[in-house]
């Protein structure tokens, strides 16, 4: 992985952008979609994240590019999630639709989508912890550093999310 430094020249920055976009853009887009259950908003988040990457002022530590992108993704999703609070309360929370590439039977898809919907219905802080740990494969220490929380809190959130996943269905979802 190339080093990302703020002092790099514009062509290098462009090359780094291209490289990181090719490597992580799908992850960012899918993470945002999983979080928000809205394709249009997920695309907006993905665009914002990579615009911030391209126009950032600070350097990104080598090897931490994915964590940086996911941190910005989570922050953008949080902002959108909070701003849409009233809409969610009035119209109800959006349902996560799956978007598979290949054709599958309805039953096969629904079976697999059940877990994803259960995760999507978790309260925000549990959902983002589960997504970062089990979907994006980040360790507890990495998530703790990213969210600025103690490791114990992350472990506790993971444990509580696993234990109480089902009862949250149809819950507050805030």
């Amino acid at each position: 992985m190339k080093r990302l430094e703020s002092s790099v020249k514009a062509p290098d920055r462009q090359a780094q952008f291209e490289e990181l976009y090719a490597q992580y853009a799908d992850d960012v887009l899918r993470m945002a979609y999983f979080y928000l259950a809205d394709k249009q908003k997920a695309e907006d988040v993905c665009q914002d994240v990579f615009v911030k990457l391209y126009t950032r002022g600070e350097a990104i530590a080598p090897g931490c590019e994915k964590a940086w992108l996911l941190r910005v993704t989570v922050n953008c999703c949080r902002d959108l999630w909070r701003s849409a609070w009233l809409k969610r309360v009035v119209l109800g929370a959006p349902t996560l639709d799956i978007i598979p590439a290949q054709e599958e039977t309805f039953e096969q898809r629904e079976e697999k989508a059940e877990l994803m919907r259960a995760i999507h219905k978790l309260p925000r802080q549990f959902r983002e912890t589960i997504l970062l740990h089990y979907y994006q494969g980040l360790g507890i220490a990495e998530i703790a550093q990213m969210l600025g929380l103690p490791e114990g809190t992350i472990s506790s959130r993971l444990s509580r999310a696993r234990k109480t996943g089902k009862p949250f269905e149809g819950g507050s979802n805030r």
Partner: protein
Amino acid sequence: MIDIKELEHLAPMANEMLSGLHADETMKRRILFAANENKRRAPMPRLVPALLRGAGDCLCERLCPAPERHGGRCGRNAHACFD
């Protein structure tokens, strides 16, 4: 309760279920366009408002030269010019 064994397979399963969702070339072009627009619309330097205010002061002084009445600072006390 969410099954931990199912969670262990969340990444490949979710990627499969969302495999129709792609960040394509169109989105990349849109990002590059937005990034360049952001750069072009760089914040106005602090010097510019100060220069504009200074020019306003000079113009005001020329239009109504009465320095003894309000210290020649018409830009800051523009209403004084019209007393």
